[in-house]
């Protein structure tokens, strides 16, 4: 009995020592750290760009906080230390702008994306266009239009292509784009609407069609510097880098459409 108590005390002591050892060492002294809150869909592209930037500016460290754009917005509103925000939706950036939390002149629409129709292996010969959804798909998945931007664009597309009324009852709503992808990829839902950049991850399902331009409001990924940033100069520099043609090439690899840097 006493031994167990002692063991426990020992564990506590070790933990405390561990803390003492780790806390100050975590921050490198002469490096500027830029804290970036980024939509999680940008993870792979940003990781690649970080490697490139590390070679260019070895004294700057980029640290990413990845999550859903709405969550990142809330964190910034509550004063979480952030220098740069890249959002997957216009609304989140508009909200922050309305509250005066971003620097207005730094805001740019960095990336664009397209909406594509994906279908399961089994249905790829029957469903080839958006019009086919009306009578050939038993179930169609889109993100919840109120909370998932891709779902909002998806609904707009179906409405403007005049198939919404016919398919509305067969729609399976998902909590995010990834869930739509999983439903269709696993064959549980016949078709779904997702971003082209997400379609890279498809394993079984295929991209059948692209939503025509004008069938939905433009998909943009805005970015802006957060007003409370303590590293404004370094942040502006990194933002400029994201708008170069080199960065645009990387974004294109991940099927995003770079709206800047096309020289």
């Amino acid at each position, binding site marked *: *009995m006493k031994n*167990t*108590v002692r063991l*426990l005390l020992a*564990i*506590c002591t070790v*933990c405390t020592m*561990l*803390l003492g050892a*780790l806390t100050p060492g*975590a921050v490198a002294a002469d490096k500027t750290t830029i*804290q970036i*809150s980024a939509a*999680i*869909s940008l*993870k*792979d592209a940003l990781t690649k760009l970080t490697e490139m930037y590390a070679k260019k500016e070895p004294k700057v460290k980029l*640290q*990413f*906080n*990845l*999550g859903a754009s709405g*969550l990142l917005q*809330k*964190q910034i509103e*509550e*004063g*979480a*230390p952030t220098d740069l925000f890249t959002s997957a939706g216009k609304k989140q950036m508009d909200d922050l702008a309305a509250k005066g939390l971003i620097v207005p002149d730094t805001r740019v629409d960095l990336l664009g994306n397209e909406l594509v129709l994906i279908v399961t292996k089994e249905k790829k010969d029957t469903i080839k266009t958006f019009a086919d959804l009306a009578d050939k798909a038993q179930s169609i998945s889109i993100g919840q239009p109120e909370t998932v931007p891709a779902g909002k664009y998806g609904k707009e597309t179906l409405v403007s292509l005049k198939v919404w009324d016919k398919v509305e009852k067969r729609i399976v709503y998902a909590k*995010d784009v*990834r869930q739509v*992808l999983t439903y269709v990829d696993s064959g549980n839902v016949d078709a779904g609407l997702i971003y082209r950049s*997400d379609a*890279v*991850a498809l394993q079984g399902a295929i991209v059948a069609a692209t939503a025509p331009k004008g069938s939905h409001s433009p998909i943009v990924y805005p970015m802006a510097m957060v007003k409370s940033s303590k590293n404004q100069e370094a942040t502006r520099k990194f933002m400029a880098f994201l708008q170069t043609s080199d960065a645009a090439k990387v974004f294109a690899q991940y099927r995003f459409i770079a709206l800047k840097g096309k020289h």
Partner: protein
Amino acid sequence: MLDPIFLSLKVSLIASCFVFVVGLATARITARNVFAGKDVVESLFMLPMVLPPTVLGYGLLVLIGKRSALGGLLMDMGIQLIFTWWAAVLASAVVAFPLMYQSAKAAFTSIDLSLEHAARTLGSGEFRIFFHITLPLAWPGILAGLILSFARALGEFGATLMVAGNIPGKTQTIPLAIYSAVETGDNEIAQKLVLVITLVSFLTVFWLNRWLRKKVTVWKKGDETRVAVSHP
């Protein structure tokens, strides 16, 4: 791949230590005392278990955010909690607390009070009674609470994502790393991490079950004699 594992272990170990101390103290108070508003306090203690972690996380975010009184005070002292792994410790500790509290309280109430009274008549101080009689007798229940808290802290996701952020290498624990990997279609890493966390959690609970069964049978056989022998 290794960063999240070490960070998760570190965060849940430290969170368990906090929860252990605070949980024991509060459980001891509510198990042995009657006071006005006790029911309210006890319900409050259990709240983190009932509330969805995201709700809890949002509450914590507002609480320690720099626009709140507490967050502002910490800010003035130069302490920034949000987006640090200490915030992850806080989130895990809050979520795991009810498990420790409830187990410890049940353990304290289940032991024979006359043993404590006997010690008191023999002149023992309250501290001595607690460490030499109450704690050893309640130990199986307390340890169960501790292990459960550790396991819960290890799996904490929602509240952590809110207050600590999902920062690779800094606050990205195993559950957050799995979330990131799944969201970006990195199935291989996701599967490996799922394996690791399942294994650790399984071993923890497995060991607890075995240990408890052994301990409880021994104690049922020789409860009184044991106490009498080790504390003459």
